[in-house]
């Protein structure tokens, strides 16, 4: 998923340990890869970003949906919802690193400063808050119903979760581990991001993004983008926010400062998660196909890459700190 990724990665403390890579010099530098969670195929596709070809598939149990990156950038956790398991991968190579049992990890996210792992169990109607390091369960919070996407406040004081079936957003105080408010957002909320001191919520049962006040959950305004608004992805340049519209089959580019729609791209196949490549292109999974679309926002051209059935989450190794990607560099510089 694409929420607050930069916040996770730019946390300096989290990256301090990135220097001590095992046998780094012996490993040839690897190409940049994309990891794609094939939700109806029980596998993770490993794609060579340069050649745009799938290199191989790593099996998981049942139904991988989303991922989160550990604060040290060494482990990519992939949630297998129906398999009730968390799978670990090396985010630089896609090598499998093992798994552990976890109840219905549909959506998962580690907080910006790396202290907690929040897991939303879409089917089982609860939100689990784990200690990120030891992965011990601190608190299970009942969340009726269908908790789906997650966003943190940058100071890590709060976590916000969309409740798809209730048409609401739940705010949880991470110090007290208790819900603070649950407020209506608009029908079937899916994607949620923290932007500029506000929450942006994609209302999939409607055609807009709701801007909410994180303090009390009041809806401040509604920005119409397209039918079936599903995902919200702020571009790393801080200039544009992309919104995927599931039913309309479009992708809307919003001006990050004004939240006014600036441009619209046609994108069929049920656009879902979005990842940003260093060259400015968007890598977008298409749920109702077997492809990832690489969209060039400058020209609007789309390049498909074949993966498994119903691709959902997507991770690009290019977001890893240079130290983690290039073994040679890792030996010289311990911090980024």
């Amino acid at each position, binding site marked *: 998923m694409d929420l607050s990724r930069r916040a996770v990665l730019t946390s300096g403390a989290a990256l301090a340990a990135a220097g001590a890579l095992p046998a780094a010099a012996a490993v040839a530098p690897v190409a940049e890869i994309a990891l794609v969670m094939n939700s*109806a*195929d*029980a*596998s993770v596709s490993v794609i060579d970003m340069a050649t745009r070809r799938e290199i191989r598939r790593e*099996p998981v*149990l*049942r*139904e991988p949906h989303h991922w989160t990156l550990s604060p040290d950038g060494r482990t990519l956790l992939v949630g297998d919802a*129906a*398999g*009730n*398991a968390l799978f670990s991968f090396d985010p630089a190579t896609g090598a*499998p690193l093992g*798994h552990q*049992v*976890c*109840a*219905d990890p549909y959506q998962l996210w580690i907080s910006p400063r790396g202290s907690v792992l929040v897991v939303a*169990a879409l*089917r*089982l*109607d*609860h939100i689990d808050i784990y200690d990120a390091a030891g992965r011990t369960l601190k608190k*299970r919070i009942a969340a009726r119903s*269908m908790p789906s996407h997650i966003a943190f406040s940058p100071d890590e004081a709060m976590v916000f979760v969309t409740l*798809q*079936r209730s048409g609401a957003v739940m705010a949880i105080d991470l110090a007290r581990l208790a819900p603070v408010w649950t407020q209506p957002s608009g*029908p*079937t909320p899916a994607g949620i991001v923290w932007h500029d001191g506000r929450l942006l919520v994609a209302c*999939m*049962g409607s055609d807009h993004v709701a801007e909410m006040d994180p303090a009390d959950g009041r809806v401040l305004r509604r920005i119409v983008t397209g*039918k*079936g608004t599903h995902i919200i992805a702020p571009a790393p340049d801080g200039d544009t926010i992309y919104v995927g519209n*599931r*039913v309309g*089959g479009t992708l809307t580019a919003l001006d990050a400062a004004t939240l006014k729609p600036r441009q619209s791209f046609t994108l*069929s*196949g*049920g656009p879902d998660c979005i990842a940003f490549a260093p060259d400015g292109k968007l890598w977008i999974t298409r*749920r*109702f*196909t*077997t*492809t990832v679309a690489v969209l060039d926002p400058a020209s609007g051209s789309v390049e498909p890459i*074949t993966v498994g*059935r*119903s691709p959902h989450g997507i991770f690009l190794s290019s977001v890893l700190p240079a130290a983690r990607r290039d073994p040679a560099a890792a030996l010289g510089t311990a911090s980024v």
Partner: protein
Amino acid sequence: MTDPALAVAGWLQQALLLPLLYRLGAMQWEDLSFGWALFAVYGLVQVAATFAVCMPLEHWRPVERWPDRRAVATDMLYTLVSRVGILPLVTFVGFYQVQVAFTGYLADHGWVPPTLELLVPPLLGHPVAAFVVYAVLLDGAEYWRHLLSHRVRWWWALHSLHHAQRQMTFWSDDRNHLLDDLIAALWFGAIALLIGVPPLQFPMLVLVLRFLESLSHANARVSFGWLGERLLISPRFHRAHHGVWAAGRRSCNYGAILPWWDMIFGTADFAASAVHTGDPSAPEALVSGGYWAQQAGGLRRMAGSRRPAVTQR
């Protein structure tokens, strides 16, 4: 390479299901609707593939010839309802909810339902091998469910709908009472809680298994030979199970895909060969009635089965 069945399911989802859910204000079910679209399209492929193979077989080497084939038409309806349409919908929405509620309850009490691959770690990372083990275990569970549905009096009253057909063809595999189907789904669900059951991860393998089940009902003089019959269930082997003398308690050959369970538990009869199928004690409504007449007839027979006077064999 793109999978054409998946392309059709994707089209169904985008052109019909999503706009419908959007209009109904039910977008939270969009994931499930795609699951159903996949299930329905693969189901349609199963039916088409089975038809393409079994139809010529039944023409080439029929066991029986009938003056009119009206009773077969109802079986065609059963097949379409269960493999393409309504039953998968009920399974995906209704049954899903029950299973989720129960799993949630267990998770809240500290028990996460396992999967076979976590119970038997070497299977993890070998999805095809895992699938084969699942197929064998589920086939074994299916054997016991089927055997019990012959031995338990009220259950047999329901299952006798499957046996009532005197014009048994490859369409007859899904000819079941809805209540019997529901029990089968619960049986399956209980196993899913114990070992986890893979969803449509291997549509082609599932297609082959379901094809074998349909084929075993075909009105075709087909045997797999001495060894083949002991590896996979043939039309000859399953026809013996449907023979008029085998209806009820003392039947043989209960297996669905593998004959091994019958061989292990002493219910296999490789010598038996039946020509005529049916259940002589079944009321006519179960034999030649339409879909709903059969459903009502099954319930009536079940209600009557509580009285000791009912025909039991």
